């Protein structure tokens, strides 16, 4: 296990990148703390897998360094880094038995057979495949194969880090929960550094201690699930996390008040913002009103079982509000209020910290 440091790291798939747009992964400095579980969250093509492959050594970065516990491994081959990685699509060695598949990484490192047998048994129990050990891997279903890949990733105890590249994409939803829980349990028991790439926010938020949100080749925020929810550092984080995502409205900010759709809104704190200024508020903090506020009109109500999502129109823009399942929706709603504690101010898509406070 090791602390992984990314130092000025960037990668481009082009031989001679000219502008910043040519980089699939923009310059990045970050420490992956030893023993933490991270989720790397972002939409497809934002550079998540690129970053993962650089850490595992399958890809060499165009610039910058990677350090494991302070030792430079930027140009070290994958084998030297002692990393385990599980891929999006199951990789099993078809002609081997399940047992040999699980033992393969250990055999390649020349561990003795007694240790291998014990480890394989342990892992088989963990992934629930003890009774299938002597079967050939060929002809198994995709989710069983993926369980074998996961098992192969976990069979080595001494790995520096465990990397997962959207490993549960091919797994049935009910199995997803089970495997994710097992992974979390495993992290809890053995304390490996884990990096889990996904584009599914639920998966990221339930798996990780820290979520790293990437957007367009850049890390836009690293934080706990709570921080991402309450204080999204970038409008993308607000939009991407939450269901539905954060509402954004253009605003003129002056001191502790903002002008939104011709109405003055209390921000609860003083801000200084310039450029393209927007007010972000999560649907959970939007309150319906019949007695004035920001003028709004209900377009439709979606009842999703646990709560209701109200879609409203404010100055031609759609915003959402979340109401309790049993909360009444009066027929004469004509405005909305925003709860001040749920308001964030963005300038040019980045969050502006209130004056006199650090960015939370």
């Amino acid at each position, binding site marked *: 296990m090791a602390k992984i440091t990314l130092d000025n790291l960037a990668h481009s798939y082009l031989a001679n990148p000219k502008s910043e747009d040519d980089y699939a992964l923009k310059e990045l400095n970050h420490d992956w703390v030893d023993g933490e579980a991270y989720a790397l969250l972002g939409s497809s093509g934002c550079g998540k897998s690129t970053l993962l*492959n650089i850490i595992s050594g399958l890809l060499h970065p165009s610039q910058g360094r990677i350090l494991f516990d302070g030792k430079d491994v930027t140009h070290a081959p994958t084998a030297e880094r002692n990393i385990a*990685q599980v891929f*999006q*699509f199951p990789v099993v*060695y078809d002609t081997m038995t399940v047992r040999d598949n699980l033992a393969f*990484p250990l055999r390649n490192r020349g561990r003795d057979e007694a240790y291998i047998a014990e480890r394989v048994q342990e892992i088989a129990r963990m992934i629930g495949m003890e009774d299938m050990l002597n079967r050939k891997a*060929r002809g198994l279903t995709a989710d069983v194969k993926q369980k074998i890949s996961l098992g*192969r990733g976990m069979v080595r105890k001494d790995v520096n880090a465990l990397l997962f590249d959207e490993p549960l994409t091919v797994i049935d939803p009910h199995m997803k929960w089970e495997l994710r829980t097992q992974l979390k349990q495993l992290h809890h028991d053995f304390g490996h550094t884990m990096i889990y790439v996904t584009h599914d926010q639920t998966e990221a938020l339930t798996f990780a201690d820290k979520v790293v949100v990437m957007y367009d080749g850049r890390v836009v925020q690293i934080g706990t699930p709570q921080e991402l929810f309450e204080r999204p550092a970038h409008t993308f984080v607000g939009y991407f996390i939450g269901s539905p995502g954060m509402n954004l409205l253009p605003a003129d900010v002056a001191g502790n008040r903002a002008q939104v759709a011709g109405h003055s809104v209390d921000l609860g704190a003083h801000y200084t913002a310039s450029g393209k200024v927007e007010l972000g508020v999560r649907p959970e903090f939007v309150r319906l009103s019949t007695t004035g506020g920001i003028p709004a009109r209900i377009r439709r109500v979606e009842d999703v079982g646990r709560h209701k999502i109200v879609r409203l129109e404010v100055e031609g823009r759609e915003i959402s509000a979340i109401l309790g399942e049993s909360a009444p929706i009066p027929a004469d709603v004509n405005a909305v209020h925003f709860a001040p504690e749920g308001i964030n101010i963005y300038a040019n898509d980045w969050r502006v910290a209130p004056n006199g406070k650090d960015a939370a």
Partner: protein
Amino acid sequence: MNKTVNQKAWFLVLPVLILVAFSAVIPLMTVVNYSVQDTFGNNQFFWAGLEWFDEMLHSERMWDALGRQLLFSGIILAIEVPLGIFIALNMPKRGFWASFCLVLMSLPLLIPWNVVGTIWQIFGRVDIGLLGYTLDKIGISYNYTQDIFAAWVTVIVMDVWHWTSLVALLAYAGLQSIPDAYYQAAKIDQASRWAVFRYIELPKMAGVLMIAILLRFMDSFMIYTEPFVVTGGGPGNATTFLSIDLVKMAIGQFDLGPAAAFSLMYFLVIMLISWVFYTVMTTMDKRDGV
């Protein structure tokens, strides 16, 4: 429910029956017909029973040809299959050079058999051929018209030159179907180059390799044109393979009866060996699946 019985429906399969009869059954039955009769021309036939088969089974000449044939097929398979795999493994995976290699590899496959024979016949000649002349001048005794070993080497090298591409192209197609993730996973698992070949590449190539082996076996077992053009079966009978012997017998000596019996047995041997190949390889495949 009562099924409608209409025997007239049989007429619908008549066209295909006629087609198959004229294209396969009747020509084959002509051979069968010759194989059980004797003729001295003028369309006069005498019943001979299984006499020709008996004669052929006790003919040293046929057993010798069969032995040479098996040796030839065995040698070219033993060279072409590993060599083809080796070439496929070392071909570029993508880009300009991949296309370039593919075109280059296909060239020998596009050359007609007798042209290949002629190329090597001239190439190997000691008086005017580049290969033969060079070997002779650097002091290596090489003369495929007189030396048995030289004749075999020439015929085998020619076949390897002509057909290794086929094995390589099929193996290459098999390799191209392996997703990158397999190689990446193997790196993570610290698999050796040999393990990557043994557990990833070979299993993925197994299907196409089976086709390659079957095709190369059947083709080489029936080889006629190239050795006929280069050596004419000689020196002596050293490169007289089954087809060459058969043609000598049927057309050279006009022994139609024995030749017909010979071809039927020839046909059965090819079927039998192909069947054995196929069965062995598919059972190997199945055993893996359980």
